[in-house]
């Protein structure tokens, strides 16, 4: 009995099998059940099993969280110095260089050179800090609504719940300064009736020692601050409102202005945060072309591909920016979003819009690479085009290998 005899018998058997089979119905039944998998008894059982697992996992997570929260609730926050040195009790000085205190809840306090600070009254929700001299920047970690931190400086006291600010105190002159970068703080002390609330990017300068001249300014831009051009003085109680009116910084428009200027000042992270606070959709739709290009680059290079994509789409849709925008969208899709099919569409769009553009060689090369990765027959066509146009191009070897396959 040879292989041929088995095969001859097999052909007859296969023919009978094919003629008697009801394949179309079998496949249709299976398809229907597959696409309604959740209603299938076996699938339901599997879902039930997964559901049970999820419930057990959730209960375990809840128990663990409660346990750790209970422990945390009773234990006061602790801190250490970032440079590894031992703090002398709760008193920390930075005589000639910056030093940082790291608290167990994630709060960071950075002392400028010449600053002395005392940590008092540590609790499970925060601590009271006293800046005895110098300048300290506090980045207070946001907790679940119950962070209780306060910073004292001379006769002034700053209450915070989760924010980023800088406090300076010069005891000889009685000068108190507060620069708020993010969040909200409440300040109390001489020259202030009750407590005064600061929000957003506002500054407060006060002079104690019997002199009650307060100065509270809204900081319209970083650049102005860097140039040392503070807003003019005003009576302390109405300073913020007047300052906003003078600089035209009101509502969301004011925040939009801030992200642009932060971006121009090279403060990318702050600019992107400010943009999102302002509501990216609205801010993008009112932004100018050069701001959108700058934003797209900043977002792309700082790992925010979706934001970059939105800025570029805005440029294409409403500013008529063809060509380069398509190339960048292709790069984002390919390199940051792992979407090779989408990327090929953008690179093709670029080549259609700018066939002689400065990125044409790169776009065509990327098409060879991406179509190849997708296993598409278009890879050969792209490779052929590439070799003809750029025989010595950077993707030349890849294109030739693609053609040889």
């Amino acid at each position, binding site marked *: 009995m040879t292989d041929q005899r088995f095969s001859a018998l097999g052909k007859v058997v296969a023919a009978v099998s094919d003629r008697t089979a009801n394949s179309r119905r079998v496949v249709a039944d*299976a398809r229907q059940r597959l696409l309604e998998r959740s209603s299938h008894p076996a699938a339901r059982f599997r879902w039930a099993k997964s559901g049970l697992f999820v419930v057990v996992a959730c209960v375990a997570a809840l128990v663990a969280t409660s346990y750790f929260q209970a422990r945390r609730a009773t234990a006061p926050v602790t801190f250490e110095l970032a440079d590894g040195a031992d703090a002398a009790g709760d008193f920390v000085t930075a005589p000639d260089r910056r030093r940082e205190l790291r608290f167990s809840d994630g709060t960071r306090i950075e002392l400028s050179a010449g600053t002395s600070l005392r940590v008092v009254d540590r609790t499970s929700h925060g601590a009271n800090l006293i800046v005895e001299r110098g300048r300290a920047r506090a980045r207070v970690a946001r907790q679940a609504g119950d962070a209780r931190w306060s910073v004292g400086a001379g006769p002034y006291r700053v209450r915070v719940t989760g924010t980023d600010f800088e406090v300076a105190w010069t005891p000889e002159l009685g000068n108190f300064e507060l620069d708020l970068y993010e969040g909200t703080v409440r300040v109390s002390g001489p020259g202030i009736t009750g407590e005064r609330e600061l929000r957003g990017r506002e500054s407060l300068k006060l002079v104690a020692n019997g002199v009650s001249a307060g100065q509270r300014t809204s900081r319209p831009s970083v650049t102005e601050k860097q140039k040392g051009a503070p807003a003019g003085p005003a009576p302390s109680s109405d300073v913020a409102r007047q300052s906003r009116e003078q600089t035209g910084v009101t509502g969301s428009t004011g925040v939009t202005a801030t992200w642009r200027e932060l971006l121009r000042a090279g403060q990318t992270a702050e600019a992107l945060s400010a943009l999102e606070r302002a509501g990216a959709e609205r801010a993008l*739709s009112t932004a100018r072309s050069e701001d959108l290009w700058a934003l797209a680059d900043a977002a792309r290079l700082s790992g925010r591909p979706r934001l970059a994509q939105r800025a570029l789409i805005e440029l294409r849709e409403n500013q008529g920016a063809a060509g380069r925008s398509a190339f960048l969208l292709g790069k984002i899709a390919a390199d940051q979003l792992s979407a090779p099919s989408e990327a090929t569409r953008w690179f093709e769009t670029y080549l259609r819009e700018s066939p002689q553009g400065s990125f044409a060689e790169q776009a065509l090369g990327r098409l060879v690479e991406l179509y190849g990765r997708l296993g598409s027959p278009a890879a050969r066509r792209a490779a052929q085009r590439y070799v003809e146009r750029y025989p010595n191009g950077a993707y030349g070897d890849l294109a030739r290998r693609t053609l040889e396959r």
Partner: protein
Amino acid sequence: MPPPGSAERKDRADRVVALQVERDEAALVEGLKRGEAWAAAALFDRHAHGVERILRRVLGYERHTELSDLVHEVFVQAIASARSLREVDALRAWLHGIAVHTACRAIRYRKARRWLRFYEPEKLPEHATPEISEEAREAFTHTYAVLERMPAAERALFTLRHIDGMQVPELALSMDVSVSTIKRRLMKAEQRFARLARLDPVLCEWLSDNGRRE
């Protein structure tokens, strides 16, 4: 042009960004790994008939409800384990491998519960199909009767090679073993089939030197 920030404008921007385009094998595998519904449907539509054919070849007679259960089972397994697929090019072979394993499991399960049955599916009365000769029908019935007495793995190998006509390298790929291993196992399966077929007068005639030819 719709006003900036309007819902229509946002929808349009979303449509531009989505750009769901070619859904080739690579995109299909990526979609499966991400658990996307279109990928499951596309996988089924592209490969269901191949899977059904493999199951039918290995199992022989099977009522269509059971066969449809098994086709469904193969795709459920494939979708659930898509993350284990390493090479896009191996998708078809990987799926066929799952089908073979599913068929073997079904055979073992059927044998294990045979004592509960009053009849065997292979002995069910057939409805008449005029275009099939009695001789061919007989060859079919007797072949699967012999295959039924073979171990599931050998049966699968023999049917895929000699009834489905699958080549040895493709078999090796589907069963995830080397070509030499497949050859060795196939030889063993052929020897067993030949030994059992000698006891069957119909198959003996088909496989003898003077036997019938189709």
